[in-house]
């Protein structure tokens, strides 16, 4: 029988990759789209307008801050699997909009878990958790590491993480929290640092820009390729038992080194183009996130294969092609 999946955040980077993956696997896919007066489904339009998907990809308008819309969509989609990828996912923005971030990223998950518990209790639930929940805790971080979030985003996501664990323990929901370290791609939002860098490299190379301004160059992150990470999400929901997993490459890289990888790909020296401005630094910085993905490797057979260097190069190439 055809499996049905509901993806919140289907218009985002991960949602669009996951939709492709699930359609490839023969799923009927339902996506939640937020109402807006500007286009926000660019990433999903090519899939949605493809005649091959006319009877197996459905978009529903709704919002994680509106529980009625969530109930209606869960009832309409009757999902076997729910992937909650919708979030206000920008750390910097969360300092500007802490209350909205909490409403969407923390309470939104409670709203969705309630809708699933009441209307699709057999559905398996994936919660997109994040390495930002570790914040100040020293690396390498794994599933047993103590959390210490350093932003409204990290705190909201931690609430959601524990809500997910709680619904598993209290109601027996097959609810899994996937703690993903940074994962990037050419579909990354343009305000995220990796994409800022790849776009700037393409623009500078084409003579359309001459400087790039960034915040903290010393921050260390564990960057992987988003397209591979959605496979890990799917595998988590195919296990016999609901267990939380870290997905990461296990390799840490500074923002400075990421700049070097991206600029040197087109024969430029990043030091000639990159400025720093303390205004781009966060009120509380997260110095170092490096994941330990050994549980995912052992139990899911999942391993990141794209290195950070390959990632930087494929992002730069895509932005050059898009110019």
């Amino acid at each position, binding site marked *: 029988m055809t499996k049905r999946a509901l993806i919140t955040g289907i218009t985002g980077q991960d949602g669009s990759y996951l939709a492709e993956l699930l359609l490839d696997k023969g799923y009927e896919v339902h996506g939640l789209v937020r*109402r807006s007066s500007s286009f926000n489904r660019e990433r999903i339009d090519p899939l949605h307008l493809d005649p091959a998907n006319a009877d197996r990809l459905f978009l529903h308008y709704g919002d994680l801050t509106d529980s009625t819309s969530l109930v209606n969509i869960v009832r309409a989609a009757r999902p076997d699997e729910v992937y909650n990828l919708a979030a206000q996912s920008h750390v910097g923005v969360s300092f500007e909009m802490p209350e909205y971030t909490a409403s969407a990223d923390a309470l939104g998950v409670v709203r969705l878990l309630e809708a699933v518990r009441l209307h699709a209790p057999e559905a398996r639930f994936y919660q997109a958790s994040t390495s930002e929940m570790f914040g100040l805790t020293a690396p390498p971080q794994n599933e047993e590491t103590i959390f210490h979030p350093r932003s409204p985003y990290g705190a909201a996501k931690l609430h959601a993480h524990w809500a997910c664990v709680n619904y598993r323990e209290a109601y027996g929901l097959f609810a899994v929290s996937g703690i993903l370290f940074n994962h990037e791609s050419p579909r990354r939002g343009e305000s995220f640092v990796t994409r800022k860098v790849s776009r700037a490299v393409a623009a500078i190379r084409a003579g359309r820009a001459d400087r790039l301004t960034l915040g903290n160059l010393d921050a260390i992150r564990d960057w992987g390729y988003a397209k591979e990470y959605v496979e890990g999400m799917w595998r988590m929901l195919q296990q016999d038992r609901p267990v939380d997993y870290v997905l990461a490459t296990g390799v840490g890289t500074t923002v400075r080194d990421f700049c070097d990888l991206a600029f040197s790909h087109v024969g430029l020296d990043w030091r000639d183009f990159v400025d720093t401005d303390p205004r781009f630094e966060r009120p509380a910085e997260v110095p170092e996130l490096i994941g330990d993905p050994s549980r995912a490797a052992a139990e899911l057979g999942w391993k990141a294969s794209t290195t950070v260097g390959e990632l930087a190069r494929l992002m730069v190439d895509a932005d050059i092609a898009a110019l």
Partner: protein
Amino acid sequence: MTTALVTGAAGQDGIYLSRHLAAAGVSVLAGVRDPADPRAMAYLQAPGIEVVPLDVTDTAAVAALLRRQHVDEVYNLAALSSVALSWQAPQRTAAVNADAVEGMLAAIRHIRPAARFFQASSVQAGTSSPYAASKLTAEALVAEARSRGVFAVAGRLANHESPLRPATFVVRRIARAAARGEQLALGDLDVWRDWGHAADHVRAMPLLLRAAEPVDADICTGTMVTLGDVVEAAYAAAGRPVDVVLDPAQARPSDPQRVGGDASAIRALGWSPSYTLEGLLAEMVAVERHRAASGIEHDARYLAITAGR
């Protein structure tokens, strides 16, 4: 030959526009949600008009249609058009009036980027109702599509009536009561609007869509009158004294008291109305007399009654 897709073709404006375009030699695809709609059966059986089943909220179906048919012009008239009902069905209003526009514009950008897009908006866009909010959202989506290279325009229509108005709308109720000599209860006669005839207003749509530059404009006569003036015109056309009682329960305090538009842009494109308010009501009253005599709500012959031209 030009091919136009008209959505909401079974509605008042869709019928007038489809027939206007077809009469001018345009090949019209008249999109209707329900092909068995009695209005489609009565008014869209005309040379040059092909009725196609289309639910605008089904973006995949819109995309399939655009892929199948070469379309030069899209007139999106499909809407939940009642301000009053939008309070009962805000989600559905947003889905049809705004979300569907996003899907349609996406389909045009990907499949028929050269097609031009007309969005029927309202001079009430942005006033206080779910209907007004949905129309404002649609206008913003049109502006964004335009910034991305689509020739997309919004025409903000002021009130426009005709014998094809559904019987729940106030001007049709007035014409009906005047024609039948029945007493009429209304909420508030001191409501100012710019009332025109739908047959006139739809002629402005292709003018906007075929302009040199894509620019939004109001579609209105430029003349404001009160609901009391409409009542007087209707009873005068019927040759009866005004017989109206006020019923405060029917008043809609949330409705704006005055809504009109600026006719200068559309008149600069060469448009002007052919009906006066008196002519509009004379025609509506004449058709209501026929309806009262025949008991038939929808009949293409009603369109030939031009008592008010």
